[in-house]
């Protein structure tokens, strides 16, 4: 449990070191409580926080959290934070392709939903995270 608290704090620290755009420091407590509620006691495995275009020309931050049972995606912009939780066992596939010549497009497909990301091919943090999601499907990160 203590490890989980530390990991939650680390996720928070990563969010608040992003700087284009930068999330207001005054929102730290709110965001921490939101993430803690969203994680809901799952064991945290990996996380990634980065600035991105959220769609509709809106820039913000995206947080991916991989737990022992779920993939959690949190979108944060200046007005709201939204989370979406997906069970790892409902992942049916991960599609990757190169687009625009220098960006990779990765789409995670679940039994009844999908979402994805376009990012520079050179961004090893993001591609590494998706590899871990892939590995988690194979049960290598099982906590049982």
């Amino acid at each position, binding site marked *: 449990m203590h490890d989980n608290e530390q990991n939650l704090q680390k996720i928070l620290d990563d969010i608040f070191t992003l700087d284009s755009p930068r999330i207001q420091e005054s929102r730290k407590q709110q965001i921490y409580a939101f993430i803690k509620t969203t994680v809901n006691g799952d064991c945290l495995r990996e996380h990634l926080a980065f600035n*991105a275009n959220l*769609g509709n*020309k809106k820039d913000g931050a995206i947080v991916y959290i991989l737990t022992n049972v779920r993939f959690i995606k949190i979108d944060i912009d*200046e007005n*709201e934070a939204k989370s979406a939780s997906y069970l790892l066992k409902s992942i049916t596939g991960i599609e990757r392709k190169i687009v625009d010549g220098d960006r990779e497009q990765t789409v995670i497909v679940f039994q009844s*939903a999908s*979402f994805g990301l376009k990012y520079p091919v050179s*961004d090893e943090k993001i591609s590494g995270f998706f590899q871990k999601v892939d590995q988690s499907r194979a049960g290598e990160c099982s906590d049982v």
Partner: protein
Amino acid sequence: MSRIEQIPSTGDRVDGLRLELEGKVDKKLSESTFFWVMGVAVVVVGGILTFVMGEVSRTNDKMEKLNEKVIVIDTKIGERSNSN
């Protein structure tokens, strides 16, 4: 625009939470804006000071010329008094 771009979610509604981020957003001046404002302020204040100094200088010049005229008039009055 960021090079990292989210592809919109599709499919059924998923479990999720939403947090409305309330509160007034304090917009701090960026550094470049701050320097611009300071620069403009310096130019404006400098301009005003230059104008004021110019006016003071011109006033001083006029006063000196007036003083010279007063001295000349005084001298002429003095000469007339002496001759009388």
